[in-house]
């Protein structure tokens, strides 16, 4: 990590730099930090710093619902507790991401670019959720090929102009698919079994919300990097809304929690 204002010259450049590659323009200034990512054109895999955990999503009768908690973890520390990990894109799509929060912000700027272009062209054509997902798949995959990934698992949900619901996901290595219910992170292990059992495309809204809440609760119980503060996005053909933050009721009074090690030999 390079201190702000540090102007690299050949004399103070860190070790393995190709001396023929100019690090900064001769007019001075530090247009970009010299990090282990791009010195001498050699790049390394990143590490995520502030991360979000699972995202859960499912289709229901009138559209798509996406839910996630609002925690930005800094390693094991539950550092940022009001992180909005979902964002509407255009009128009828919502983008949500787990993984590195700053990479998600960057992806949102790309989306802004696309929606601004559509706005300026003003020709009646708007970006559909499927186009968003395909576009992101290409972006993510190309970053993966450069060994400089955007460290996110992304979910795109929305309702197209023709009224068809769309729910797709893109992984950080560029894997992409669509389904009736999707979950990233821990949710893939904890929530999807619930979805498989109880989700169907025609399900009414209250049933869908109850299913999502049950799945969120399970994730909150079992995922150590989660908090009891959630948002749900609801996308129908009339538009997309993201709810205010809310908490779920939880129960911790079980005997097993009082003395968890009662029957575990050799544990503390």
């Amino acid at each position: 990590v390079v201190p702000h204002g540090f102007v690299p010259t050949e004399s103070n450049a860190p070790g393995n730099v190709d001396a023929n590659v100019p690090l900064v323009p001769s007019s001075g200034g530090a247009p970009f930090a010299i990090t282990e990512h791009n010195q001498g054109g050699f790049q390394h895999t990143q590490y995520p710093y502030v991360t979000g955990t699972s995202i859960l999503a499912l289709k229901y009768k009138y559209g798509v619902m996406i839910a996630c908690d609002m925690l930005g973890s800094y390693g094991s520390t539950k550092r940022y507790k009001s992180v909005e990990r979902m964002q509407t894109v255009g009128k009828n799509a919502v983008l949500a991401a787990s993984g590195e929060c700053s990479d998600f912000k960057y992806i949102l700027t790309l989306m802004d670019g696309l929606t601004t272009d559509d706005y300026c062209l003003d020709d009646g054509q708007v970006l559909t959720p499927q186009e968003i997902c395909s576009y992101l798949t290409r972006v993510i995959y190309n970053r993966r090929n450069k060994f400089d990934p955007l460290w996110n698992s992304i979910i795109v949900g929305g309702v197209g102009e023709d009224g068809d619901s769309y729910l797709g996901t893109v992984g950080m290595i560029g894997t992409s698919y669509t389904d009736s219910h999707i979950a990233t992170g821990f949710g893939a292990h904890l929530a999807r079994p619930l979805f498989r059992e109880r989700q169907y495309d025609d399900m009414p809204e209250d049933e869908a919300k109850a299913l999502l809440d049950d799945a969120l609760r399970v994730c909150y119980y079992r995922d150590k990097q989660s908090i009891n503060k959630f948002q749900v996005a609801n996308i129908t053909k009339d538009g997309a809304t993201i709810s205010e933050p809310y908490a779920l009721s939880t129960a911790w009074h079980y005997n097993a929690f009082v003395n968890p090690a009662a029957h575990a030999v050799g544990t503390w």
Partner: protein
Amino acid sequence: MFRNQYDTDVVTWSPAGRIHQIEYAMEAVKQGGASVGLRSKDYVVLATLKRAASELSSYQRKLFKVDDNMAIAISGLIADGRQLSRYMRSECINHRFVFETPMNVGRLVCQVADKSQVCTQRSWKRPYGVGMLVGGYDATGAHLYYTCPSGNYFEYKAMAMGARSQAAKTYLERKFETFEDCPLDELVQHALLALKESCTEGDLNSKNCSLAIVGVDRNLEILEDEDIQPYIRKMEADDGNPMETTADAAEPTVEGGADAEGTEGDEGGDATPMET
């Protein structure tokens, strides 16, 4: 058009506020073979009159598929047209690869127009000598556009370009109000009848005509030779002309007084060498 003192290059204005080189380029389009385009709410039809350099040669292609949802008909310097069609195909395929949907016709036409404009403002370039009728179907419906060497583009309900296109335009002006809800077969007939107005001796046959159809439930299809025969026959039947038989080896429409490039000179007047 008389020669002017201000027409040496495209980067010189005339005192009348015109750039003559661009106008000369548009003249090349006017000298090219006729093409007609029209659209309804759901379909677009392009029809072109092909030329043969001589009795021995084949007819020159002027209709190009750009993508499953888009085709162009060109008039003027066919070689320039091929370059532009290659650019358009490339853009369409890249768009499909990234977004997995067909490209919006109007946006592509705008890109082509911007590309054409660049050639009107560089001292080391010349304008494209080709006008295009772009017909396509996308998420916003059926569209027909016309681009010209100046870098302008317009959307049309029906349009004709090339030699003797005024006759076709007159036909279209009479009929275009019925096109919006017209069924496809009728639309094709209108296209052929309009094109026929631009023919010498009214001689339209399956050898010198090609057709492109695209629409809401149809991927782009280009019809030539045998495939176009039924439409030509129907048009002639409705028109009261004798039916064209399959054994009839129709004369290619080789213009009288043509030089080796096969241009359609107006009664032996200035034959433009630019068509091929």
